[in-house]
């Protein structure tokens, strides 16, 4: 399931257009759909030319941070004599997001092609695809595709008869959220604990195995072949100046038609929720939406008119993130939802930074106490202060990830918290 639903909206199924076609998984089926043409074309281009096309297209990282992909590639040192590596981040583990899984499951060759083109652009001799441990079926599909690619001269030595070689390796993780952070991913790839490291060194200086490395999300790499084939201007026909192109959306929660969609960037969020996904199944009003996966800030039910671009959602006080809206109708217990989100981050904290290790679980314990009716008004002040102390103080942004939803839920749904507290205490507080 969960290949894009048909929709009355202006759906723009470019990246996902072959999802749902079992045939597209095989090399023959993929070639029949024009597969590996972009790779062939890239072999006639210089790495700088490939990077320029991607730069011009304005493609931004689809893993959540939205960093411009071409710019990231251009950070890789040139002619430094060292081996370079590409890491494809397929450790999709943000609660709410399930888009990369479908790319891998239905169009593994698209991902491999994207990896190879990116490898060529950054001068990588080895592309590692770090797949989330729980993606068992997807890993099998991807493995089969990689074997096919090697057997047909599309990976390994002398790709497509050229003098260029690049290996592709699938690496299954062990199921840690933090392995999806780029430095955590590389540590895990190297056999260490999946612990993010403090930058510098940046991956482009010293990443996997101490060598210059670029880490890109699955969806980002999967978008590269079509950009190379059709050109930067073609890609820019969708979306805004700062957020061009199309984007996969993983819509979940209280929705009549949850699932994966692909839209041009820039639609109003309300269109996606109400038009494409049919609103709440019960017809009740939407109380809250976390638009970009669990690590982004809550939006109120009346804040959904914002444009679904990186800048549009930032303006609305949240973030596009992985474009994985979790919709909650008016019956939702926001405190319970927030506690569950916080529990996830407390469980997934790698334990290096004090603020994250101790702070996330402290937040959980406070929220549990509030849920149990033992809350005090001062708890809200404490939570606000913890939010402040956990923001921007740590190696990676896991601690910030719990702060965004927590702080926004306190801002927007304070009454929900206070409703759980003893009335006498609220009055006194």
């Amino acid at each position, binding site marked *: 399931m969960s290949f894009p639903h048909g929709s009355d909206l202006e759906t723009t199924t470019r990246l996902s257009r072959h999802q749902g076609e079992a045939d597209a998984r095989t090399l023959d089926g993929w070639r029949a759909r024009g597969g590996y043409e972009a790779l062939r074309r890239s072999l006639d281009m210089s790495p700088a030319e490939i990077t320029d096309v991607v730069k011009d297209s304005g493609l931004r990282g689809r893993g959540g941070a939205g960093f411009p992909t071409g710019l990231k590639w251009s950070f890789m040192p040139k002619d430094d004599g060292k081996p370079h590596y590409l890491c494809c981040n397929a450790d999709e583990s943000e609660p709410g997001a399930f888009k990369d899984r479908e790319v891998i499951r239905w169009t593994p060759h698209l991902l491999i092609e994207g990896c190879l083109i990116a490898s060529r652009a950054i001068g990588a001799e080895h592309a590692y695809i770090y797949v989330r441990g729980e993606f068992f079926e997807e890993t099998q599909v991807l493995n089969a595709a990689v074997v096919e690619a090697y057997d047909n001269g599309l990976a390994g030595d002398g790709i497509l008869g050229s003098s260029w070689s690049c290996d592709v390796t699938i690496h299954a993780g062990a199921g840690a959220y933090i392995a999806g952070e780029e430095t955590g991913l590389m540590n895990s790839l190297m056999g260490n604990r999946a612990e993010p490291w403090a930058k510098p060194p940046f991956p482009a200086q010293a990443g996997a195995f101490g060598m210059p490395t670029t880490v890109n999300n699955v969806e980002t790499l999967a978008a590269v072949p079509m950009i190379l084939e059709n050109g930067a201007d073609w890609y820019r026909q969708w979306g805004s100046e700062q957020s061009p192109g199309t984007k996969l959306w993983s819509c979940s929660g209280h929705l009549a038609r949850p699932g994966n969609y692909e839209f041009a960037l820039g639609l109003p969020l309300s269109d996606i929720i109400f038009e494409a996904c049919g609103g709440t199944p019960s017809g009740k009003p939407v109380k809250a939406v976390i638009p970009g996966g669990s690590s982004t800030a809550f939006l109120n039910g009346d804040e959904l008119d914002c444009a679904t671009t990186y800048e549009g959602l930032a303006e609305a006080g949240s973030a596009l993130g992985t474009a994985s809206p979790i919709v909650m109708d008016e019956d939702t217990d926001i405190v319970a939802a927030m506690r569950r989100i916080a529990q996830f981050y407390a469980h997934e904290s790698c334990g290096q930074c004090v603020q994250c290790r*101790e702070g996330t679980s402290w937040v959980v314990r406070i929220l549990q106490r509030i849920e149990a009716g033992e809350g005090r008004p001062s708890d809200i002040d404490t939570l606000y202060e913890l939010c402040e102390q956990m923001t921007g103080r740590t190696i990676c942004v896991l601690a910030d990830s719990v702060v965004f939803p927590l702080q926004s839920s306190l801002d927007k749904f304070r009454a929900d918290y206070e409703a759980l507290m003893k009335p006498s205490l609220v009055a006194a507080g």
Partner: protein
Amino acid sequence: MAENGAKATVTLTIDGVEVTVPSGTRVIEAAEHVGVVVPRYCYHPGIPTRPAQCRMCLVEVEGRPKLEPSCTLQAADEMVVNTASDTARTARQSVIEFLLVNHPLDCPICDAAGQCMLQDYAYVTNQLESRVDEPKRIMGRDRISDDILYFADRCVICTRCVRFMRDVAEDDSLIVAQRGDKAYIDTFPGRELDNPFQGNIVDVCPVGALVHEDFVFKARAWDMDAAASVCPGCPTGCNVTIDTKENQIVRVKPRHNAAVNSWWMCDHGRRHLVMTNRGVRAEVPLIRDGEQLRPVDWATALDWVAEQMEALGSPGGSAVVSPDASNENLFYVHRLLERLGVAGAAFRVAQGDTAALPTVPTLKLRADRAANATGVELFGGCRVDGLADGSEGNGSAVSGSEGGALVVLDDALEGAGEDFGGAADFFLYLGTRLPGAARNADAVLPIATFAEMDGTFTNFEGRVQRFHQALRPPGLARPGWMVLSRVLARLGDGEAVNEVRGAFERMVAEAPAFAGLTWDGIGLKGAPAAGSAAAAAAAAGIHGPQKADA
């Protein structure tokens, strides 16, 4: 400053004070140049990796939006660092509050109390009250090796211990297990922590999470006295601090010396030092009275010994000295032997296993199990295998059946026969203990161990290092140099000295190997003796290789 190429130094401002440091210096170290110690947990100057994970050393840098970890931040020209801004201080205070969320606050029974970086920083940051009202996570304690306990609840997961083992000892048997607030330190599944340098993980622990089992619950920090000393376990001469309580050594910690042991020491040294003062000691001077050794006061004993020595007829005899004796003791024995016409003392050195710390080339547990074999050799001592081993080719071996004078300085005389020294004209035994083989002695003078006096050792490469008195000697025992200077003074040779400085200065004046050294100049870091390997290397570095025929 030279504009071409990389600059050698950078100048930055830390807390309003301008400081110039070599390029590449991290801000946390640059701050120490201006007397600012930025609070830290995971940073340790002796451990090369800096994960910047404790977030305690965050400082404010002008023009940067976020606080920066000063342990990894490179000092740069025109950088303006504020370690005590409100933001930095609040951040530090919050780290302490976070660290105390699950901390059991069992300071009253914790061995680190009083020397704990968590306690210290709680006071420094004024984080004395917690808003935590939730039940704490409880982990309990574990035995992490056969002699080290791990109190998981006290642990701040700074990973200094893991990184000491991995990055300094190159032993990856210690790991962080689990994650988040369930993380703890453990051995890798199926592996044991069994490294000759593992004791250092206790020293690097900033809190009371790792404790040596032989120290646990033994002494409070404020009940201990500390003395700078040198480990006598092998000729490396690791600089140590001896912690004592009620005149017993209860703990030994390495003391930093970049030229010798860096920040570390081996476990053999620790065990050896803690045991060094145990056992039954010689406490009273004894002099021969017919068949018996009679206890007497010092004046009587010294007068009698001097009298007997004056009365010795023909010069000659033999001597055995301990390679654990201090340079000063050896010097005075040497003077005495010269007077008695005894050439070169014999000495024996027990041998043991060796061990090396891979990343610190100067730090090794060496095979000789003695502190000062080099010192004995500088005074013309002859290494022998056993007391009575064949005299062929080894003129200095002592069988104990020679005539003339026999002087033994603190050798336990293991393997000596019942009649050892019986044939000697005068058998003087100076010792910390009273072995059976001293039964034939004409006089036994009780002396202090190295831990009970001040003095110097010469390490394997000729580095002369000072150690200081940590304990009171038992009974009437006194430092060997103090005793011998009095014997010699009675023989008309020099004056009685009461202070080690006097003994040391006389040694420097009269023993060419030590020429040029001063007690103050040696300081707490030591200095190479003239003519030693270390001094030769230093000289070669300055003057270049010298011609053999020059």
